[in-house]
């Protein structure tokens, strides 16, 4: 579904954000992007919504060629890919309900349908009672839920979450991840950038590691290679056993013949 081929990003300052990234993410996967601050996680997510262009390489999401996507189609792409931004990007002068309504208005949804969808989303993230409140009246965890609800408003096939547990206590962080897992169970592909290794270990999902813009690990590839190597080992073992048996047989034959000669 998402394919990155030899993607590099060098910023105007000359700093390399990403270097020769090759990556495939299938539909319905839950992927953790892990790495230290400045490792390129956010850059990768920004490239996926054409917030910036790569210096080289190709990016495809489904049938969309992101790099050569015409300017006028970018809004369509962004309606298909929901994003939970690191700084949430909620409008402080609008109520929670109005914030979630925004993508629906932008997409030109019918007023009544949009209002119903807002209620549905607020129920889903457990925040219906806060609908008329303003962002400033909610806690960090609650705001994260609102940001997730807004990202899900147009039922995107892909949800990008940039450090959604960044400033949260452990319990709230796990609540958020549980919510994302439930969303993933409904078929939404989720790419979550994080540096919280406790969450990564608990969920046991695919993990892609980045360091200084380079791909340093991908559990999907390593599990595949592990599977391949164990299969090879098994085959080798089986082959070895057969050869041992053959050798043993030959040994037996040789020893009986020498015994016969000695008897003679």
């Amino acid at each position, binding site marked *: 579904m998402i394919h990155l081929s030899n993607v590099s990003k060098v910023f105007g300052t000359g700093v390399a954000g990403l270097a020769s990234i090759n990556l495939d993410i299938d539909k319905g996967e839950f992927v953790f992007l892990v790495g230290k601050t400045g490792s390129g996680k956010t850059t990768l997510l920004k490239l996926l919504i054409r917030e910036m262009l790569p210096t080289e390489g190709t990016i495809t999401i489904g049938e969309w060629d992101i790099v050569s996507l015409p300017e006028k189609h970018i*809004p369509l*792409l*962004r309606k298909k890919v929901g994003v939970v931004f690191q700084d949430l990007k909620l409008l402080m002068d609008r109520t929670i309900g109005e914030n979630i309504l*925004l*993508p629906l208005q932008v997409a030109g949804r019918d007023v009544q349908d949009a209002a119903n969808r807002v209620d549905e989303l607020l129920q889903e993230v457990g925040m219906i009672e806060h609908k008329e409140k303003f962002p400033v009246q909610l806690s960090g965890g609650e705001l994260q839920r609102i940001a997730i609800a807004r990202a899900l408003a147009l039922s995107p096939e892909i949800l990008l979450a940039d450090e959604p547990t960044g400033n949260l206590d452990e319990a709230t962080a796990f609540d958020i991840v549980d919510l994302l897992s439930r969303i993933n169970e409904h078929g939404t592909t989720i790419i979550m950038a994080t540096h919280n290794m406790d969450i990564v270990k608990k969920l046991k999902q695919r993990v892609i590691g980045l360091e200084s813009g380079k791909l340093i690990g991908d559990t999907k590839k390593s599990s595949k290679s592990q599977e391949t190597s164990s299969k090879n080992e098994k085959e080798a073992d089986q082959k070895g056993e057969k050869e041992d048996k053959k050798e043993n047989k030959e040994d037996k034959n040789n020893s009986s013949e020498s015994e016969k000669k000695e008897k003679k």
Partner: protein
Amino acid sequence: MHWSTMWNHIRRSPYQALAAILIMMLTFLAVSVFTILVAGSNGVISYFESKPQVTAFFKDEATQDQITTLENSLKASGSVSSMKFVSKNDALKIYREQNKNDPLLLELVTADVLPASLEISATNITDLSSISTYLQKDQSVQEVVYQKDVVAALTTWTNAVKIIGVLLIALLSIVSIFIMSIIVGLKISHKKDEIEIMQLIGATKWYISNPFVLEGIFYGVVGAFFGWFVSSAVLLATTPLLETFLKGIPVLPAPWWFYVGMLLGELVLAVILGIFSSLLAVMRYIK
């Protein structure tokens, strides 16, 4: 949706909105004043054009044949819109009517003293001079009188008013466009974060820009309406005074369709100015 967003923009920065409306009102007040002045001047010129502008007084010995020949040649020239022959007896009647309150003057004058004349109106005011020259060359004509100074002065003044009006309106329109685009630009800058968020969640450029364009149109239309209202109210209030000043020149009171036409014309201009100024800001600030 766009209307409610536009209304929110205006409601949240009322002083900027007021400044935009006032500058538009000032522009359209100038547009209205010069429209009234030019229309009034044209009315006055038309009035003078409809009056006999050249009078040729015939010699006593001029024959009817000579007068008829002159009339025919003037008609054939195409520069004359109307002609009226005033005989010696007609001239006496006019003289008596004009001096009916002075019996002494009436006693002294008879039809023989007064010359017959030909009163001529030109199709175009610029032909007056050539008509006058033509008449002076005719042997049957004693003297030619025409309102050269009045009409020439009026034409000069009207042209000056037109030029000054067009220049002032153009200048005020440019100032309005820049001030409006600065005000709309300020509003866009103020909403930079909101615009960025909207772009990131898939809003098209025009979805974001439309409320700002509507805002520009709103300022233009409201400013134009108030400019028209003030100028029309002043014109209506001063109509009796101006009628006395113009002494029977029938340009006032202005007909209702003049006010309606002026309002419609100004509203069209306001929409154009509003769209242009807000688009200028949108293209500059929303990438």
